[in-house]
């Protein structure tokens, strides 16, 4: 059975914008993205919204719903109370292109800055072998759908535009961790550059990235903190540093 829903949708551009009240029907079992599509079809035909799979796997429909970074396609209308006004805005960490669509190119820039996987030079195609226990750890990070909700909620850049130059963000910390934990990656100084160039030290582990991740990747516990500990190994632990000079250890590279 359909029920009337009150929405406040942000409309505008990079220069100006405001919240607009809209009333629309919502059917049982629908998600926020369904309702936005109904608004588009019946009330505001030129409302801009980015979406694709409607299955929580493409990461396109990231937006803020009642102030929380969410995927619109994974947010059930049943979560909201009768008569509640639902406020929908674009991601507030990135510049607006139009209405609910933001420019997330910051993330693509940061992706390019992460040094790629570097296998041993003598490893021929088809020769690489990995045990399942080694695959499992980085497999969690491969679940990332690049919705950038973690980047959006991270206060380091959300609340401080000036930090964007020197901070890669949680999405790329899991990429760095994935590579650093890869048994066949031999790139040296990945830990040091994580700290010195990608801004790992800026993270104060307040775990908002983990809270908003729709794939439930334990970003802080399984990627950021392990990377912080690895950085301590090479930068802030004189005993480990000395050990690495005396005896080459496979894990300190």
């Amino acid at each position, binding site marked *: 059975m359909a029920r009337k829903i009150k929405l406040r949708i*942000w409309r*505008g551009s*990079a220069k*100006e*914008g*405001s*919240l607009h009240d809209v009333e629309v029907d919502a059917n049982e079992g629908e998600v926020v993205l369904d309702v936005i599509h109904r608004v588009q079809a019946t009330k505001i035909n030129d409302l801009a919204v980015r979406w694709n799979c409607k299955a929580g796997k493409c990461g396109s429909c990231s937006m803020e719903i*009642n*102030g*929380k*970074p969410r995927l619109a396609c994974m947010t059930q209308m049943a979560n909201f109370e009768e008569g*509640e006004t639902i*406020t929908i*805005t*674009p991601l*507030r960490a990135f*510049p*607006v292109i139009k209405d609910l669509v933001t420019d997330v190119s910051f993330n693509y820039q940061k992706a390019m800055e992460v040094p790629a996987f570097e296998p041993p030079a003598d490893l021929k195609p088809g020769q690489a072998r*990995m*045990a399942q*226990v*080694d695959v499992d750890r980085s497999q969690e990070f491969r679940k990332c759908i690049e919705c950038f909700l973690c980047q*959006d*909620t991270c*206060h*380091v850049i*959300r*609340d*401080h*535009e000036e*930090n964007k130059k020197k901070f890669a963000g949680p999405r790329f910390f899991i990429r760095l961790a994935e590579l*650093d*934990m*890869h*048994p066949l990656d031999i790139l040296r100084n990945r830990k040091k550059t994580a700290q010195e160039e990608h*801004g790992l*030290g*800026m*993270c*104060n*582990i*307040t*775990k*908002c990235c983990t*809270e*908003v991740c729709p794939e439930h990747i334990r970003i802080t*516990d399984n990627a950021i*903190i*392990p990377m*912080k*500990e*690895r*950085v*301590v*190994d090479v930068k*802030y*632990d004189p005993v480990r540093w000395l050990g690495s000079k005396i005896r080459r250890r*496979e*894990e300190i*590279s």
Partner: protein
Amino acid sequence: MALTTGVFSSGRAELQERTLRTDRWWLQPLITVLVLLSFVVYATFRAFEGKNYFAEPLISPFYSPCLSTECVDGASLIGQPFGKIVLFGLTLSPALFILVFPLGFRLTCYYYRKAYYRSFWQSPPACAVAEPHKKYTGETRAPLILQNGHRWFFYIGLLFNILLTIDAVLAFRDAEKHWGHMSVGTLVLLANATLLWLYSASCHTCRHTIGGRLKNFSKHPVRYKAWTVVSKLNHYHPNFAWVSLFGVAFADLYVRLVAAGTITNFYFF
């Protein structure tokens, strides 16, 4: 002055609100502040009190190991290397010689960092709630860069755990030091030591040291197995952090009440 950075930067969605969250996002940081402040007030009072910390065979975890010549008879398990120190006319209590270590362990703990950065420093107060600070440098500069010393406090914390476990074992004696007895105090000290071990064993540094730092789990099956166990415990690290904090305070309070004669330490046998 209104902030012009962050969510109020030009180019971002033009909105006046720091957050549009409609839930009670402020409740969690408020509870954290109240609980941690209560502990700090109680611990400070007890650390400076300098008495009612030992009632044979029970010793308060705030005063163990008791390393000062000011310690009461029987309270010093590993000697008294420190003499009497008077500052501003006040004799330093034995607790003040040691509390910096457990305090440092908790202060640099990855979980407590999250808790106090959010609740006390409001950086951020909650997810998607704009913080009030104009600048942010994280843990890249002094003093917060010292958070990278967590592992040293972890190692020292293990020594404390050993000593507090010995204290719990020694509590299987009666007031005349005869073995084979057990009291409510024994259970209190045992519970305290157990919770502290769980807190240490679930620590992120422990997880890293025991196996997390490896690139090849498959080449180190024993360390991998240990890592999986610590990883499971690590999931509950916040719970252990809180429960062990209450445990320490309760153990101290119990010993204080017994030492002051307010209650009697009931012996089961």
